[in-house]
């Protein structure tokens, strides 16, 4: 009976490993692109967690005093929901279970973590999370794209990733769990011409006259090139 008086292990994590890509853009920054429908957000995993429980941390583990799984952002057919497992507010309102996210909504998690939810393009369901407070994962990330169908990179505000000095738009398109790159610009992928579009694999470098970015699977971050 004493078992009832103990906390159960908070574990279970959505199966998303490998579905998070990282884009490094010259002169712009580093963005994470998540392709899954449920993205969990939480604090850092405990350093003592050993291989039997490697998945205790959230998909987006922020260095903060959040719970290990503090909230989940869920993409539905029409929009996005925030499911709170800990203290959370959306646009100043407490979230008891879930709340819908509209463009511009301010997400506050715990005492101090603040994000802004943006859906810059009316044509795409994809969304972006901007960091408002200075809490980040272990390394600097400039934004987080929740990829539904397409992710637009380009000079205007309607793009998911705004790259002010670029001559035109580049599109990352999701096709059956694969990421494709399309653009009207003269671009190359690893030196080959982009043409009408190419599938991107982890480690590919897309470059053009005034732009260059590299995409990689998350988790490859710490590997050196030895």
């Amino acid at each position, binding site marked *: 009976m004493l078992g*009832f008086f103990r906390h159960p292990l908070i574990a279970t994590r959505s199966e998303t490993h490998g579905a998070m890509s990282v884009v490094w853009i010259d002169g712009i*920054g580093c963005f994470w692109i998540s392709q899954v429908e449920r993205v969990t957000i939480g604090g850092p995993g405990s350093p003592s967690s050993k291989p039997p429980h490697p998945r205790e941390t959230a998909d987006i583990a922020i260095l903060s005093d959040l719970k290990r799984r503090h909230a989940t952002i869920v993409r539905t057919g029409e929009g996005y929901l925030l499911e709170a497992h800990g203290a959370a507010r959306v646009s*100043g309102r407490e979230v008891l279970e879930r709340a819908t996210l509209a463009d511009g909504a301010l997400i506050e998690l715990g005492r101090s973590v603040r994000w802004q939810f943006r859906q810059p393009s009316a044509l795409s369901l994809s969304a972006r999370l901007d960091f408002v407070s200075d809490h980040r994962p272990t*390394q600097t990330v400039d934004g987080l794209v929740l990829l539904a169908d397409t992710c637009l990179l380009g000079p205007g505000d309607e793009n998911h990733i705004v790259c002010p000095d670029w001559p035109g738009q580049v599109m990352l398109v999701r096709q059956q769990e694969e990421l494709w790159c399309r653009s009207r610009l003269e671009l190359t992928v690893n030196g080959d011409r982009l043409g009408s579009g190419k599938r991107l694999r982890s480690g590919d470098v897309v470059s053009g006259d005034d732009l260059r970015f590299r995409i990689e699977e998350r988790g490859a971050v710490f590997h050196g090139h030895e």
Partner: protein
Amino acid sequence: MKFTFGPESRPLDGYTIKRAIARGGFGEVYYALSDSGKEVAIKLLQENLEIELRGVTQCLNLKHTNLVTLFDIKQDRDADHWIVMEYVGGKTLDKVIHEAPQGLPLEDVLAWLDGIAAGIGYLHDRGIVHRDLKPANIFRENGVVKVGDVGLSKFIAPSRRSAHTQSVGTVYYMAPEVAKGRYGKEVDVYSLAIILFELLTGKVPFDGETTAEILMKHLTERPNLGAIPPNLRVVFEAALEKDPQRRTSDVLELARHFRNASRGEVSEPSPVVEQNGADYQEIHAERLRICSQLRGLLDKARELENAADRDRTWGRKQLEVEELLRQAQAIRSNAFVHDERCWDYSAEGTLSSMTAIAAKFRNLATPRLPTLDYADTQPFEQPAASNKPAPRPSPFAKPAPPKSGWDTFCYACGAYVSGLKKSVQAHPLLAWLAAATFFLFTMRYWPGMNFARIGHETTLVWFLIGSVAIFEMFRMISRGFDRLFGPPSPNSTDRAGRTPDVAPFRAAYRVVSPNSVREISWRRRLTELSGSLATAGLATAVVTAVLANVEQFFGSTALIGHFAIGTLLGSWSLLILGKLREGLPRERYIDRMLLAGVGMVVGVALFQLDGWLMIGSLSDVSSTQQSLLSMTGASPSSDSRQLLAESYIAFFATLFGLRRWWWQTDSFRPHRFRVLSVCLTALIGSGAAFAWGFPVLWGTVWAASLSSVVQLAAVWTPREQRR
């Protein structure tokens, strides 16, 4: 932009380039990760002039919050030099100016100015001149301004105009004497003044088509200060003086003049204090004195903070903390009036710690201070004379509560009704008792209720239900008024889902329900439990005493004792179980099963007590004949006027198991005392008693008193203190 190195290349051992950041005046800058994951910015020096390297080497070990930290200088395989430095995210001042073509608001300008002046002032204090101050190498990350490219400036001469050593941008900020090749720290004053000009107006004062044209303007033309606010013009005239000897001599002085002038004060040129001998000693002594004073204040603030964290009295201690902060800020303004050099970085750090503590108190205390609720809607206006930095308008400031429809109604009806509503809200129990008394005295006149014909026990049940009904009706009417005629709630969102950023910040204590999982130490559980158990004893005594005065409820003294012990036993077991499970993840059915189990134990105990006191029967065993037990064949024979053990056990097990008792015992329950809960418990009690052949009156009253006692005794945390 083309960069020499691509992503994932490793020109330096131990660092992997992830992306290019920018091309600076001295070379390409990349964002790189060390093998263990440390993020750094690495800069390739394209011309390895010895003078350049010497400059950087000098600065390698300088430490200041407002300077970008240099980690190391390394050579790659091609003998090129790389500088490894702190990676600073955030925008460059360059971008900020670009986004605000009409200039920045004065507060922002002051924030940038303070950071730059502090960083450059520190450099000057160490005998180093930056020489290449420009918006492109000034950053702001998390509110901290950082000046980069320290020690990197080259010998800039207009004659050497090769494209990649000298970007045009630099020329805009270049002091005239640089062209002559001799310069001191006045160069940085000039550059900073130009940056300030650009921040205020969005344009640089000397612009032109070519580098030569701009340089010529620097040398000869007087700046057009027409776009500058009149009170600031004199500051710019002094700082943009062509002759370095007559220019404002120090960046900190420029910052001070600017700040004073922006407040409309005329600052006297500070007496020239030579930094040597006795004078320096004096300043040093003053610094130490200020520091020790501030430490004292900070220690006090920390003590208050610890005390408040312990007993959660942020509201009561907030004023003391604010007073301490005020004293610290007074010390700061005095120091600045005296000599700004007395105010050093450790003093600034101590002050910012105090500000942080005060901010914490403000956050935690605001919702509980009614005076602040109404008065704090505007950010404070700072008296112009003090040197306090204006506090940012708190995002947690609470709006004035809207006038509700009920309030309007009350206003119409006069203060009497309004007072009545307040007292109902403040003392629900008293209000309920008042309603009950009213009902008691008037019920014989109520239509359709001929109480003469029904027995006393039924009267009591009717009395309970009726009084609660009246009470709830009053509350519902009051709420309905608010909902019908009141203004929309302040939290309502507009169409874009945005709220005005004024709603009280509740995330810190959002956890409000007994279902919230939280950590409570065993020690605290025990302390709270012992208090509750004692209160439960007292409450039981009161309830029993009240009931003992009700005519014909108790037939004998033994019954009084039986009732009291039963109530006490029941409430204690509910409180103990509730406290043990408090804060742990709720398993609804397991909780109910535990409760039911405890109920059975209580039932057994009370049955034993019943036999021991030789009560035999409670009051009306005759009503037990039509019970579930009798239908299942386990009924007592009608002639034996004895209550079965099964009745006891089943009654208490049902009463405990059917009700979610943790909503009454948990310290996070929505209300300290809820009459409706008592009422519902009484209802379930009567139902259970009826079902199991337990005397209905006893079942009802026992359930109601258990619920009241438990709610009165259990610890309750006010909503705003929950965390």
